[in-house]
């Protein structure tokens, strides 16, 4: 039976005892009297209140915290649209090399040729896998890559004197980052409703296109796990209206190595290396969201690119229409190293197998879920790609057990919950993605758990409202946390009496 560690672990501030230290510093060397402080007393800080804890105390604290956390290493993590792949340990070792971790972006390029070469090779690999002509490895995460892409579209139209193109078309099934990124880049978001087949309605889209259309952001396969079969027609329509096609690579897993966005008419692509290319999610970062473009738009990519002059690599700022920068630095280098190692470890055949396994896992799961009372696969007649959305609407209506309750009941059984209540157009949505890492046995266990939960919902629904009880905490009061006083607990803000 599953049981997660449950500690009443104090905060670091509560663990603090005056006079303890966690690490021994070198004795400061003598400044020969000349190194004295040149600081006005008025600039000096009076006190600094940080915890004082021994080294073993710190290690035990974080060890206990880690035992109260769930990762891919712990077990099934079918969080839809997040592609929770196994994170190969080889790549952890490769990226922890001093020559990866300790080099400086501004040191002379002659001393870091290997690092630049690795970035350059990774760039060409990503180009080959997506059909783009150049990639900037700079963006810090998917959303940062989206912003870069949107800014490129904005500048492209402005440079052409086309100032009225202020609309970005985004399907209603898109991840929230798409409309948010488009807005940040100054666009008005035009949301396209999804048709009854789970795809963008081509005729509706055509009606929405105009001389105000800047572009369209598309996730394919979409968040319903369905491949947009009209994609090339959509690209043609958007292009003939003068718009740019943007590919959100969050779901590339569903067509990795099989089809390439560039061959489907996309002009700009961002990838999530922490999804499709197996780099660890780290509890929500650091990630990496490289942005690529076809020849038409590569001149707008963020600088610097990594280019080659004869035998030597250099940071290339000579990108004619570049938007500039979307973050400091040239990219999440240790993440890039991991992704590079991953691609080598897979090869094209391995990447295709990864895609096929993810797609098979999804369809296998969807087929098994079909028979479970109260649950319905959204768009059941459609072949799924990397993920599938299951609706618990029927169950909620008949028993009062909601998608939220279901997800907590999965936690109870030692399976991480799927993404819930998204996409919004499916009521009581549960979005499952097993990626390529889950075995048949794990998927069967997830199905069996759902079946068990369904039976409980139709016999003792109240019992499910109490779940989870086997995790580190029982269900938590999320409303209570929305006050500034609850966002920090330190020497200045002690726990209040009612916490």
């Amino acid at each position, binding site marked *: 039976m599953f049981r997660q560690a449950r500690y009443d672990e104090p905060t670091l501030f509560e663990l603090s005892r005056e006079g303890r230290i966690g690490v021994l510093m070198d004795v400061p060397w003598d400044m020969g009297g000349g190194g004295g402080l040149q600081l006005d007393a008025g*600039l000096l800080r009076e006190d600094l209140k940080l915890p004082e804890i021994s080294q073993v105390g710190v290690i035990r604290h974080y060890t206990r915290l880690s035992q109260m956390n769930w*990762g891919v290493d712990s077990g099934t993590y079918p969080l839809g649209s997040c592609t929770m792949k196994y994170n190969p340990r080889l790549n952890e070792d490769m990226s922890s090399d001093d020559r990866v971790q300790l080099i400086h972006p501004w040191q002379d390029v002659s*001393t870091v040729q*290997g690092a630049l070469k690795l970035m350059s090779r990774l760039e060409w690999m990503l180009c080959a896998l997506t*059909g783009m002509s150049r990639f900037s490895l700079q963006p810090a995460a998917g959303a940062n890559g989206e912003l870069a892409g949107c*800014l490129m579209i904005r500048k492209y139209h402005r440079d052409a004197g086309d100032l009225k193109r202020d609309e970005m078309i985004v399907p209603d099934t898109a991840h929230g980052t798409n409309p948010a990124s488009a807005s940040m880049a100054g666009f008005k978001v035009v949301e396209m409703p999804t048709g009854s087949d789970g795809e963008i309605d081509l005729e509706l889209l055509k009606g929405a296109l105009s001389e105000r259309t800047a572009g369209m952001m598309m996730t394919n396969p979409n968040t319903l796990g369905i491949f947009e079969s009209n994609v090339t027609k959509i690209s043609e329509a958007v292009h003939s209206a003068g718009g740019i096609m943007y590919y959100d690579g969050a779901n590339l897993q569903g067509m990795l190595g099989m089809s390439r966005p560039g061959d489907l008419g996309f002009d700009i692509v961002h990838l999530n290396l922490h999804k499709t290319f197996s780099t660890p999610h780290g509890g929500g970062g650091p990630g990496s969201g490289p942005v690529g473009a076809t020849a038409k738009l590569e001149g707008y990519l963020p600088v610097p690119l990594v280019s080659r002059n004869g035998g030597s690599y250099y940071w290339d700022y000579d990108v004619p229409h570049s938007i500039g920068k979307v973050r400091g630095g040239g990219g999440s280098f240790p993440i890039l190293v991991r992704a590079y190692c991953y691609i080598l470890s897979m090869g094209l055949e391995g990447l295709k197998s990864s895609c096929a396994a993810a797609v098979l896992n999804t369809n296998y799961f969807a087929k098994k879920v079909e028979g479970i009372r109260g649950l319905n696969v959204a768009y059941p007649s459609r072949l799924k790609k990397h993920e599938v959305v299951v609706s618990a609407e029927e169950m909620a209506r008949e028993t009062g057990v909601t998608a939220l309750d279901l997800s907590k009941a999965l936690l109870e059984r030692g399976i991480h919950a799927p993404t819930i209540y998204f996409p919004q157009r499916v009521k009581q949505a549960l979005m499952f993605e097993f990626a390529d890492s889950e075995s048949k046995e794990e998927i069967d266990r997830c199905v069996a758990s759902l079946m068990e939960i369904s039976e409980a919902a139709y016999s003792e629904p109240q019992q499910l409202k109490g779940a989870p009880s086997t995790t580190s905490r029982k269900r938590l009061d999320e409303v209570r946390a929305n006050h500034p006083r609850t966002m920090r607990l330190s020497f200045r803000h002690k726990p209040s009496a009612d*916490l």
Partner: protein
Amino acid sequence: MIKHPYIPNTASFGEMLSEIGASGAEDLFVDLPRRSFSADPVPAMPMGEAGVEAELSGILSDVAMHGYLNFVGGGPWRHFIPSAIKHIISRGEFLTSYTPYQPEISQGMLQALFEYQSMVCELYEMDVSNASMYDLATAAAEAALLCARVTGRKEFIIPESLPWERKSVIRNYTEPQGIRLLEVRYSRENGWTDMEDLKQKAGTATAGVYIESPTYFGTIDPGMRAAADLAHDAGALMVAGADPLSLGLIKPPGSLGADIAVGDGQPLGIPPAFGGNSLGIFACRGEQRLLRQMPGRIVGMTEETGGGARGYVLALATREQHIRRGKATSNICTNESLLAVAAAAYMALMGREGIKGVSSRILKRTTYAKRRVAEEGLEVRFPGASFRDFVVDFGDPRVEARVRAELLRDGILGGRPLKSDGIGIPGGSVFAVTELHQEAQIDRLAVALRAALRRAG
């Protein structure tokens, strides 16, 4: 299908295919338009583990790091990193988890981030911190957006002395929102904010004023409080950028009138990694109008429903893109969580004495380095206190480049050139010393600089 250690189901493929009534893998992709392509340079077949190691070993052999003395300034920096940190953030339960959307099973990451927020608040003397942004540049840019949303105004004042890349990021985030950036001059005498210029520029259109101290030049600007007063008199918000390690010794933004504090957490136990490891610190005062407009994830403390044990959850999610979509306060989703945990572990291990000790070592060594370099006859810009970074002006960008090349030949990685920043010191570069530099190493830099300048000039 090929056998692969990362893909367990290649062994169950046939069985699973027949369960869904498919005859082959091709059936799974009948809906995809397929076109053959050349995947080069992606290898056709998987490379074994030893092969990948050999490949990496080969490519990294062309990275020369050992044997060089590193004085590159302007960030990121090499600081002392306690060994325990790597072991803490390598724990698989942290490393391989995602954003803690399901709090009951993700308490460890949530509490670790909550503690990060708490310590950031102590360090900066602010009330609320988020769980991280990408880096300082994007944190400052998001602060500008927040100021504009809260005040309804469309001008944001930034220091003239910011590096080009930070300005570019801020411009990219603000320009589409119709926010105008104004640059406040720095005094050529001391590198500090020119208060007269700020008085001219701050007015009824100003949404916010952004000042950094220590500055890009390393100078410690005593004008932060005065700038905050000017900003507030104009009805604008004050955004203070501060290096977290400087705050062991220097007055924190919260005590100098800042409404929002930003910084880069990389110095807190995080290796520079070719500029690829950054951690945007973002904190603000505990006012509802600021809090409701904050970007990014925030972890809050709560308890089990109906009363029970203390627990942690993501708070105020209605600000965020996955709920609010196009009207969210930011598009940020994945941030720098694991590095925030690293920074928290660093602060916990170093503790109050450790951070104060590092702060004062850096301040003293910077003072020493500036004096030694000046003694060797070079022009060190800006008298007064500096933290970690300092500017040496060679007068001419060509001379600066030649000096840098000479230093390299001497085994020294020299300053970051200021030429492309376009901020008035084209022939200068930014050097840095940290608590890792020994007296003899600083002496060696000073002497080498003199020799290099003689050869280059």
